[in-house]
């Protein structure tokens, strides 16, 4: 508590931030309390629910179990960065909003980021693969099926987009 604060340089959503934080601050705390990025949620602060998942260098990580000081020099992505600097949403966000992937919405940020990592590493995941990848994220509202529908839909949109890109076969 009384330890002197650390001065950290963090790259969050492609922007550099300087924060002064206690050495034991978690990434969750730094994001929510120092950077006011409250889209990242907490359901347990013990690494049990997945609500706080963010991407660190592209991989999903539980921000409640990650010290902010461990993230210096790494790239952090939160829900606020998923659409980039655009009013157009990411296909995952569109699909979650349209297809019932989100009810109370509290698990949604963690789910979207975990799913984003999956679809960026796997062009064509099966429903079982998606379920496996998301199985560390608890949702109490949906019964998970509409979440799976939403991710499948986003996979399809991304696939169609790739095919329509110039140079696609």
């Amino acid at each position, binding site marked *: *508590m009384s330890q002197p604060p650390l001065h950290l340089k963090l790259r969050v959503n492609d922007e550099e931030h300087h924060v002064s934080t206690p050495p034991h601050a978690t990434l969750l705390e730094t994001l*929510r*309390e120092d950077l*006011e*990025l*409250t*889209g*990242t*949620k*907490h*359901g*347990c*602060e*013990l690494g*049990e*629910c997945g*609500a706080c998942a963010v991407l660190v260098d592209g991989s999903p990580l539980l921000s409640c179990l990650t010290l902010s000081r461990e993230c210096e020099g790494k790239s952090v992505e*939160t*829900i*606020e960065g*998923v*659409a980039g600097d655009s009013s157009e*949403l990411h296909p*995952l*966000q*569109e699909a*979650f*909003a*349209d*297809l*019932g*992937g*989100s*009810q*109370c*919405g*509290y*698990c*949604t*940020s963690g789910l*979207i980021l975990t799913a984003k990592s999956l679809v960026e590493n796997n062009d064509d995941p099966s429903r079982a693969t998606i*379920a*496996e990848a*998301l*199985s*560390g*994220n*608890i*949702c*109490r*509202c*949906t*019964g*998970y*099926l*509409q*979440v*799976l529908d939403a991710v499948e839909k986003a996979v399809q949109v991304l696939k169609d987009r790739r095919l329509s890109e110039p140079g696609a076969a």
Partner: protein
Amino acid sequence: MSSEKDGKKKGPRAFHDPVVRGASGDGGAAANKAEGEISTGWHDVGGRGPGGQFNSIGKARRRVDGRAKATGLTQYADDLSRPRMLYCRLLRSPHPHAKVIKVDTAKAAHHPDVKLVLTGADFPVTYGILPVSMDEHPLARDLVRHVGDPVAAVIARSEDACEAAMRLIEVEYEVLETISNPVEALATDEPRIHDHGMWGNVHKAVSLQFGDLDEGFAEADQIFEHDFFFEGNTHMPLEQHSSLAELDRNGVLTLHSSTQTPHYVHKALTRALEMDSARIRVVACPNGGGFGGKSDPFNHELVVAKAALILGRPVKCTLNREEVFYCHRGRHPVQMRFKTGVKKDGTLTAVDLQTLLDGGAFGSYGVASTFYTGALQTVTYEIPRYAFRGCRTFTNKPACGPKRGHGTVQPRFGQEVQLDIIAHELGIDPADLRLQQVVPPDSLTANFLKVRSIGLKNCIEAVVEKSGWRDRHGKLPEGRGLGLACSSYLSGAGLPIYWNQLPHSGVQLKLDRSGHVVASCGAAEIGQGSDDVLANMVCEVLGIGADRVRVITGDTDLGPVDLGSYSSRVTLMMGNAAIQAAERARDMIATAVAKKLEVSKDRLAFADDRVFDVEDPETGLPFAEACIVAESFHGTLGTVGSYKPPPSPARFKGGGVGPSPTYSYSACVMETEVCPETGWVNVTDVWIAHDIGRVLNPVLARGQVEGGVYMGLGEAMMEEQVFRRLPNKYSKALVHRHPSLLEYKTPTFLEMPKVHTTFIEEPDGAGPFGAKEVGQGPLLPIMPALSNSIFDAVGVRVMQCPMSPQTVFKALQSKDKMVGPKPFPDVPWPEPTKVTPPWEGGDGRGESTKKSFVEKMDAEAGRGSETVASGGSNS
């Protein structure tokens, strides 16, 4: 024995009271007239577009709060932060039952970052959700009643400072005997956990009898008697409760909170802080899930409010996950005994139900929960004579309260498993046993519940057909089985928590020259989609897209009162209020536009963001222009709508729990694999049909059904809110066995089976556009369907819930191929209130000299109590 021979079949069929569907010409005007200006439903259930087509109802559409949720912009209570905000933590009792002798806060108060320390001495006045059990203190004064009961609060500059200062508080306790379950509670008169219960540690014991049970059992060919047990479980919303209190610029106390019931929190603050209600504003932030767990006013809400009043600074308290488990208010553990008489053909002749509830340390919703364990048995199948005895005890555990299906889930489990046993014993298909005695529409039950539309038969037929039940039930190989169960739930409680004549829900609309509509209502969005329902009503009636509607909800300053998100009441009640408000707005616009276009008003149609002549669609105005015309004509535009349920025919004491404007129905067939060696259970498919009246937005409706199935599977297979004693060398305290998300097991993506959902749409005039509830009902058949499918798979009866592999294994190992609770204990039941069923000429009153509250309410409203005698129709 048989009464059919003498042609006097008793049961709901003998009573028939045709109700006028809302689609009839008067649009429910007669009902409204009877109730003054407050709507009681019964609007036209058809669409409001040209030719009665629907503008937005029934169309799959992104929910109005969908974008915010997918972008992280939804602000839950803990996402709020204020300049100069302080943090609050509660010091909680380590003892389950103890006198608080002394709380010394001097050292804590001297911590440099601490601004305030509060104790029970700062809170002389009690609060509670029900007027009959105001038995909670924001901080304990003399007695702690469960581990986790708060005794002091620290308000400091950081949560770390709060924690450090809490360790400096010295509390002296005198430990009392712990009462850990209902059997102990019945046997232990002293010490009493509360002195407001009926006696000893019995909070509430009720006994109701509808008709001559002896006669009913005498008519039976066979009597079945079974004991069941349903373990408690908790809501586990993903969002931990959080509250932020502040004084606004005018000094008004404002509480932002994760609550399903801002109106009741407002009332609790008014009472416990002894304040003028006009100086308090409560804002229900969007809840990160509720499921009933945020329906009570909570300690931390009152504490931060008091602290903000004293310090003049914003104060926030967010519970940690362990605290959420200890706040609980979840499913009561209930032991049950069902005694049921049946004829050879499966016809029910009488049901005698006893329930024993483990209430935990406070009243909470307990009186209602107790009645609910006996209220809805009668609304699914014809039960000509019915008796119910229920008893809720206090114990030294976190209080139980309402969880999805509130009090009706446990007896539904027992009833549906027993029906499966009966069907098996009598050699009748369980589907047929049910189909042959479904309650007829527009009838009264033995306990005077008014059943209007009932799609239960259609539900059963749908799941039977889609699951291949007829060809596969009883015929699958060892280790694989099908089970069937049904259920019903309220579409809102017929009576408010505070008995009064006020509307249960109000909606206010503001329209102006910009062409958008602001709809406000006190209803709390807890994830179920109530904001979207509100927008949908307005869009349908005014023929506009959802992008023209803004909703403001859950704010006691900015919207009219709605009682809250509980008892599946919001869609029906807020929906009806919204229709009334929107119809009034439509009328104002139509009057002005008719004049402007020189077209008769009744030729105007509202659709596609336009107001136009239905016979000449080119003649019309865009909606925004129509608003300008209307604003020019009438002046500033605004309307209100209100809703109150029709009065219930039940007049007896205790008849206030169970009535609803209309009931939803569900049927489920579940397919299960069970390992005969280990008892491992795997659910592969769930076919579920839900009588929803009308689907408002199919995406959301499906989500409610699947979410209910999921939560039901959790309860059926693994979820348990259970307690253990710490070893003697420690404190012997009664603590939660696993207050964490990892160890409190819930289904993940990997446990979720396929769910095949069917909606039965038979619009019910009581609901908005005919809609009934969908948020709670579909959970109810899941637990009994699992038990019944396990029997079909491996031939064992599981009479208790959850049905973990250990439990199933126990049944597999037992001689009688069954696992269940110990026999129902002896309860010193009070004398029953006897009520004559409607088909025996009963008028809904009980044989009691005491006036029931319904009669008192009637007197207050100047309304006669002749309703039932003159036919029982409220429509």
